[in-house]
């Protein structure tokens, strides 16, 4: 009897799981930020890249941990230091039925860096690369110098169709006329600020999605997004606010999915000025910039209780950080651990450095750019005050903060002394933060573009240069890890924590969480 019942239940469940994707094959997704366009080359912006990954494919894809996997290219290899060969996938069709061939790749490469009025284009990934057609399913990419990151770079470029998309304007994409990709979903409707609707591409080369129709709705207010999933108005939300995670994890209506992010939250310190504008002696008189003393920087790092930040401020949805990128990513160091919280050690270092009496400092932070950014700045200010660095907090709207933090001082130098910022590595490996945050500032080479502390160490630069010239993966990973070790040893920046990306689905669904914050509907399925 029992057995029969068990079989009956199992059959019922089996039928239910078989039927549910057919019966209720529509999914509604609550987005945290609206896309600025449907044109995949218009704006290199995370919400756009995330959304459009559902319509368009790239030659090289990134798996949920941002490791490279074949996309529209079945395989690739470096023929020599400056030439790469990509074998294209055969039998792939665009949504309008036209076949995907090398011609589409060639014209995409021409379009991506040249979209008019683009607020941030994809030229930086295509710099110094030319593409040649060998036959319909083979292309060669030639570079001016060795570019080991070429496959990573190409994993950011969405392939559009020669017949529908290459000559089209951004407006044509927004109306849907040109929004023809090879991806798992087809464009159906775009109402700016309201919704984006897609339907399944039944012929998708990567298999058919569990959904016939997807509706994305931007719900920017975090509490409203949570309410929408609790009310059953949407089936999936991204960027679950930390304050609600504890409550939602106990709620029978929803399931949570999370993974560590490619984003590190860190502090940049003024290391280039003799006298730093927001640092004074306790009585307000000018002093020499103490942040140029490594002992002071180390004392600051030791005074930061990363576990407390993670537990109390981030409510558990963060991981204490010891380097530029979480340990599982390419090119990170195995030896670096988060600096241990040690107030006594910090005080001792301050004394050694001649700052026993402490000094006054201001920490600047954006308000609303990163999860709980302003709160973290306040907490860290208190921690610093404990070791004698009397710290006041100034938080600014992101629009104001970043201008002043990058170029608010005289001669377009960074204005602040000590700032809280974050860095997400789009390429998912360590050269991205090393090049932008750590490398010596040099506009002619495009290095140090976000190095707001002006840290500079020729040894690190040399290691990064060597890494970026090395096509051998293992060697490059070693060099990047070494560069990170030297830079963190110098306290070029002080890492605080890695964010965690959290999605919530209605109970009964599952999603594969991604380190790059992309919401990929293809990975959503009934449990």
């Amino acid at each position, binding site marked *: 009897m029992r057995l029969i019942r068990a079989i009956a239940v199992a059959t019922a469940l089996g039928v239910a799981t078989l039927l549910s994707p057919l019966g209720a094959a529509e999914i509604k997704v609550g987005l945290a930020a609206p896309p600025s366009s449907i044109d995949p080359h218009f*704006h290199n912006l995370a919400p756009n890249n995330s959304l459009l990954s559902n319509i368009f494919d790239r030659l090289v894809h990134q798996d949920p941990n941002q490791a490279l996997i074949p996309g529209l290219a079945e395989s690739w290899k470096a023929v020599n230091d400056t030439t790469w060969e990509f074998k294209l996938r055969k039998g792939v069709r665009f949504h309008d039925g036209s076949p995907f061939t090398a011609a589409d790749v060639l014209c995409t490469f021409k379009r991506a860096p040249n979209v008019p009025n683009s607020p941030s284009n994809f030229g930086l990934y295509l710099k110094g690369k030319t593409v040649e057609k060998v036959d319909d399913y083979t292309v060669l990419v030639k570079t001016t110098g060795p570019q080991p990151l070429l496959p990573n770079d190409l994993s950011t470029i969405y392939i559009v169709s020669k017949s529908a998309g290459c000559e089209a304007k951004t407006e044509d994409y927004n109306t849907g006329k040109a929004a023809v990709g090879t991806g798992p979903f087809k464009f159906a409707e775009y109402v700016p600020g309201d*919704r984006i609707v897609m339907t399944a591409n039944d012929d998708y080369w990567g298999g058919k999605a569990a959904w016939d129709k997807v509706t994305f709705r931007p719900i920017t207010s975090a509490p409203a997004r949570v309410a929408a999933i609790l*009310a059953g108005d949407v089936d999936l939300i991204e960027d679950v606010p930390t304050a609600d995670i504890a409550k939602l994890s106990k709620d029978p209506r929803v399931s949570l999915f999370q993974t560590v992010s490619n984003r590190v939250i860190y502090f940049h310190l003024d290391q280039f000025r003799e006298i730093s504008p927001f640092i004074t002696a306790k009585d307000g008189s000018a002093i020499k910039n103490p942040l140029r003393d490594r002992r002071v920087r180390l004392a600051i790092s030791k005074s930061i209780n990363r576990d407390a930040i993670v537990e109390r401020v981030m409510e558990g949805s963060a991981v204490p950080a010891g380097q530029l990128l979480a340990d599982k990513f390419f090119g990170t160091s195995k030896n670096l651990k988060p600096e241990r919280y040690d107030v006594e050690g910090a005080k001792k270092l301050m004394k050694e450095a001649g700052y026993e009496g402490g000094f006054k400092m201001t920490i600047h932070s954006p308000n609303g750019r990163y999860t709980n950014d302003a709160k973290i700045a306040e907490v860290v200010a208190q921690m610093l005050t404990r070791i004698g660095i009397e710290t006041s907090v100034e938080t600014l709207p992101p629009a*104001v903060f970043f201008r002043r933090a990058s170029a608010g001082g005289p001669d377009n130098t960074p204005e602040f002394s000590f700032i809280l910022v974050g860095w997400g590595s789009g390429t998912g490996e360590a050269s991205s933060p090393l090049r932008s945050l750590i490398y010596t500032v040099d506009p002619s080479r495009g290095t140090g573009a976000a190095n707001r502390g002006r840290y500079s160490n020729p040894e690190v630069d040399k290691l990064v240069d060597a890494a970026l010239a090395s096509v051998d993966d293992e060697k490059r990973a070693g060099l990047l890890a070494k560069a990170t070790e030297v830079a963190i040893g110098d306290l070029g920046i002080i890492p605080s924590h890695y964010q965690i990306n959290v999605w919530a689905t209605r109970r009964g669904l599952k999603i594969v969480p991604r380190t790059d914050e992309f919401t990929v509907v293809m990975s959503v399925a009934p449990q």
Partner: protein
Amino acid sequence: MTAFLIRRLMQAGLVVAVMSVIVFFGINVVGNPVDILVSPEADQAERARVIREFGLDRPVWQQYLLFLNGIAHGDFGRSFVHGEPALKLILERMPATVELALAALLMAIVVGIPVGIYAGITPMGRASKVIMAGSILGFSLPTFWVGLMLILVFAVHLGWLPSTGRGATASVLGVSTSMATLDGLAHLVLPALNLALLKISLVVRLTYAGAREASQQDYIKFARAKGLSERRVVGIHLLKNIMIPVVTVLGLEFGNLLAFSVVTETIFAWPGMGKLLIDSILLLDRPVVVAYLIIIVLAFLIINFVVDALYSALDPRVRLRDAGS
């Protein structure tokens, strides 16, 4: 009448011109859109390209002259964020906001005026005291909190109404509106109520004060003495005389509903103009902000004109005429 119109138009032109200068120069002082829009991974050359392409390398006065030149050709500039004409973006979102504002205004009138009059002519009744106390709550509760509570109660707990977003639309007389479908109306109720709550309280208090004062006056007493029905006394004589302040305030408030329903639109993910404005301000999308505020100034001017016209309909002693003419 013609002189009045011409004078009004000239005033309007002046207001718009002054406004555009203030907004244009004001927003140019705040931050730099390039820092927000450019991908963090972009290098210095890419930043320089964007600055050049947006014309941000020119002095502000030159940018302003270019902007005026554009307006002379009917071009309010191109959104930095969306790459589309600013005017198009705003007009696309206007119907959603207009229907939200109209629904809220309707609620304010239909609920506010009768309730206010009732409280005004029976000021000592228990119900009136409850009404007046309630109106204070309506004033003082912050919109974003009330909005979240409405969602929590009616969408999450009771499940009667959808939590966010705009429902299905249908086309009525060439205008696509969500007021024409059931799904659309269901989506409209909560945000409109949230927006209307403060307006209802305002109208209740205004009508209450007017009705209390007017009901003591001789003409009402005469009307009653003459034996007119209570319905006629209140519905015609009293109502007409207390409507002028109510119409003035509702006119202004309608402008506010149209222009600055930002909080409600954000909480309810309502795809209207207010949402566009706040997004544009946060991203420093200057062309959209400037175009938006200019359009709003025009809207206020039109509403004020309509209010003036309504005065003269309500009170024949008022003529559409300036003191000077």
